[in-house]
């Protein structure tokens, strides 16, 4: 591969947007326009000939690498763009309290955890794991939270009865998982 083609390959790969021919020229101002076009053609043809999973495509705004169509579906299915997220220990604790004490108000959650849990509850609500189910008695008629169907879905439970009862917890909890890879 010519040095210019290699430089363009790196730039097109790393760039946050498609690059125009003019932009690519700023990488190597001494290169003439013909050389730039030749390098781009070399790059495109190289990827096409060697039967790659990606291709160099010319679109209205410039040049960009795209994955070949036939792989798009598999990649989308695998959802690489998004790392599966795990809940923080604080979120899990709050969720556990709400799951076992529902309907339950913020005050009570705060009291059990010993820290302000407002922000954590808001995040859980945002993720659709808990929701306001009713209002409590007493001063200000506090919002009371409970778990959502999505909560059950994520845990793979049919209903709340499938949660182990608290008396069974230490039995249900397996001994600490074997040395997790760091």
């Amino acid at each position, binding site marked *: 591969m010519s040095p210019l083609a290699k430089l363009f390959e790196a730039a097109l790969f790393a760039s946050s947007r498609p690059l125009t021919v003019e932009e690519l020229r700023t990488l190597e101002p001494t290169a003439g326009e013909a050389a730039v076009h030749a390098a781009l053609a070399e790059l495109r043809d190289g990827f096409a000939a060697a039967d790659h999973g990606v291709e160099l495509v010319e679109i209205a705004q410039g040049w960009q690498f795209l994955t070949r169509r036939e792989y798009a579906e598999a990649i989308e299915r695998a959802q690489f763009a998004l790392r599966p997220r795990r809940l923080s220990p604080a979120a899990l604790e709050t969720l556990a309290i709400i799951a076992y004490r529902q309907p339950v108000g913020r005050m009570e959650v705060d009291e059990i955890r010993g820290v302000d849990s407002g922000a954590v509850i808001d995040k859980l609500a945002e993720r659709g794991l808990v929701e306001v189910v009713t209002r409590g008695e007493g001063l200000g008629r506090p919002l009371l939270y409970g778990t959502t169907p999505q909560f059950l879905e994520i845990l793979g*439970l049919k209903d709340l009865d499938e949660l182990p009862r608290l008396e069974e917890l230490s039995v249900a909890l397996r001994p600490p998982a074997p040395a997790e890879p760091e």
Partner: protein
Amino acid sequence: MTIPTPVVPVSNGFVVELEQFSGPLDLLLHLIHEDELDITNLPIAKIADQFLAVINELGLNQAADYLEMAARLLRIKAQMLLPRRLGDDEWEDPRAELVRRLLEYQQIRELVEWLGQAAARRAEQLGRGFRPEPPAAPPAPLVIELNDLLAAAERVIALIPEPVLHRVVPRPLDVEGATARLQALLAERAEVGWLDVVGARPTIVDVLSVFIALLELAKRGSLSVHQAGAFTPIQIRRESPREAV
């Protein structure tokens, strides 16, 4: 080597940020290296005086962490000056803790060097920049392991002095049972007391079940409820069957 001036001295003398030293240990280590002193046998009087001079010069005398270290150094200096009895096996070098921390910190500085170089080397390579966004990006899948949740529950329980957690078990009111019980009692006797129906130690569920059954049967005209006065016992009387009216 001269000590560079602080980066952001504010007019009132309070140092907001100090870029050349990341803390009092860093400064101390700098002084030790500059004078090529032996960490393990630290001339504490000398280093304490230098440290104080520098924090004065830098206007650091209002930065709590540096001030705390200055106080520590002065205390060790004083302890070193105390006379000690010959053959006193109990004597512990007052510098020991500081030396341990300095050695530990020196090791961290060496790791910092290594990490900094690794990061700089990695920064010479660029990852993929442009990615056409997939239409309507799905939200990141959320993972909750049941075991994690249960472990969290157990952690929470451990935080509570007494077990105030209730288990969530659906306990539907047994209105049907209460209705049958009322009807059976009234078939035997024309009048029964409230306590006869609910028993001696009723649960809240029993009370509610009986109460609802009572109201329902009263509505249907199968019984009537009487109370002589407020807080007096409630009497339940069988009503004559409707057919007979």
